[in-house]
């Protein structure tokens, strides 16, 4: 059964990485039209190195994604706690309200935000982008952390409180560490959501400030060149290395370790 499971996992990974491999391969292909067979070249990396706006957009994306994932995870975790542990009026309404940001295409949400921020005077800019990204990422966090929370035993918090923990301390000392795998997962997803978020950045960025997805989507009308693949490949490579280092150092979700 274990062997079967591992094989299945491997097959799943192959599926997940199939287009990613193509993407990386195309970064080394001379043809910008993704034609086969591949003519190997480093051309696009050179082009990339000279493309200042693209690089700075990538930097912006990363920074916003980092900030978003941290803020959204913090807020979302607390919201999830409130939704799953306490009962209060309007709770189910709140739960339902989580869905629209996921359900409504981003385009619409983006437009709405643009108009909303315009009317309320928040305006555009990095702060507006951040607010927008966080707003979009929170439902994901709430759902993911909520899943983890449902599997948590309630008596542990009780035990902590009987030992003198305030609910807040009990949360940090007991609930949070046990939720760590969920929270880390939520963080990684919030990061992904923000990183790939186009519409909101696009509507809310001030001219001259751009993010990677904005660069990609706006250039699609004419055609994006494999520099995009190149930067994605570099980005993936770097994250993969970081991930490995992180996994080596940390003990992510270690409390659930068996054997």
């Amino acid at each position, binding site marked *: 059964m274990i062997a079967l499971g591992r094989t299945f996992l491997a097959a799943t990974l192959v599926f997940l990485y199939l287009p990613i491999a193509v993407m990386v391969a195309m970064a080394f292909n001379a043809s910008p039209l993704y*034609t086969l067979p591949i003519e190997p070249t480093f051309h696009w990396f050179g082009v990339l190195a000279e493309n200042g706006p693209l690089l700075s957009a990538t930097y912006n994306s990363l920074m916003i994604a980092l900030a978003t994932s941290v803020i959204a995870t913090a807020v979302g975790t607390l919201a999830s706690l409130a939704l799953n542990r306490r009962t209060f009026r309007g709770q189910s309404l709140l739960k339902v309200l989580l869905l629209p940001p996921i359900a409504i295409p981003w385009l619409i949400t983006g437009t709405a935000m643009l108009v909303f921020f315009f009317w309320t005077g928040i305006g555009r800019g990095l702060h507006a982008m951040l607010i927008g990204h966080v707003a979009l990422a929170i439902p994901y966090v709430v759902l993911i952390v909520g899943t983890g929370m449902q599997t948590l035993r309630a008596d542990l918090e009780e035990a902590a409180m009987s030992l003198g923990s305030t609910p807040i301390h009990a949360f940090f000392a007991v609930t949070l560490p046990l939720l760590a795998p969920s929270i880390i997962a939520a963080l990684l997803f919030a990061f992904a959501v923000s990183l790939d978020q186009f519409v909101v950045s*696009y509507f809310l960025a*001030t*001219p*001259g400030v751009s993010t990677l997805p904005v660069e990609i*989507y706006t250039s699609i*009308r*004419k*055609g*994006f060149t494999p520099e995009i693949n190149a930067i994605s490949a570099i980005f993936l490579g770097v994250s993969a290395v970081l991930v490995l280092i992180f996994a080596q150092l940390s003990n992510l979700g270690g409390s659930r370790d068996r054997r």
Partner: protein
Amino acid sequence: KEITVLNWKGYGTDEAFALKAFAEQTGITVKHDYFNSEPEMLTKLRTNPGAYDVVLINSARTQQAQAEGLIDPVDLATIANAKDLAPALKDHANLKADGKTYGLAWLWGMNSLAVRQGISADSWTIFSDPKYAGKLALFDDAVTSVGIGALLTGQDANDPKDLAKITEVLKAMKPNVKLMWSSEDEWNKAFAANSFDISVYWSGAAVRSIRQHKLPVEFIVPKEGAIGWLDSLAVPTSSTKKEDALKFLNYMIDPTFYLTWAKEAGAPASANEGAMNKLPADDLNRQIHKADYLPKLTFMAALPDDRRQAFNDLWEEVKAFYAK
């Protein structure tokens, strides 16, 4: 000094060489913001007063922008290069409102027929020719598609009276339709992969496909005619640097700029006859944007809201029919 331009990405105004040259000439640096669809452009103008100094507007939208008070009239007399503008374009009806010209005619192009080399065609009827089953790519755009339908049924592409008939001819294409493209990039990739042989395409993009990607494309204006469009550059009412903006407008129809742009990157046709004439006679761009096509074109004109909605509904319905 700095001005901000609102445009499609990669559409002339942001060519690095041009910005450099312009800055050297005038000391003005140019920043960009981009839009992805025309309504979006209007939205951006509305919600960011003061942010933009130059905006690219498809002349079909000029009157709408003007009616909302988003753009200023342009005094062509103050733009040196404007003297050589093609007369038909310079004062095109689309740009006019209460007697003033609300934008500088900049570029024009066609949405017409593109086929794989070796296929000969001179009529839009090829779109429903059973020989090309599953070989057709349509442009996912209501105005263009309705326009083709209008041409096929002999109606005015800007104001067809018999929408039902158009629906019918478009639906008849179903067996041929393979995909609906929405970007040049997608078109190129799919064409390169032999996913289709026949399509509607943009004239400027066709130039780039042939010249840069060496794709075997043949661009044809069929006997029924084609859809033409005229892009203009305008100055938003809210701009605070209108003088600098006008300088930029002037530069954008400068023949030297156009020459480099058209040759290096590939551009649609310039509204400036002077600029067009500078291109070598056998230049691909000139080949495709033949001046004698102009009469065969129906230029996209301003559409009232309800008609635009009708077009859109029609196109959605046709697409839904394709998908069934």
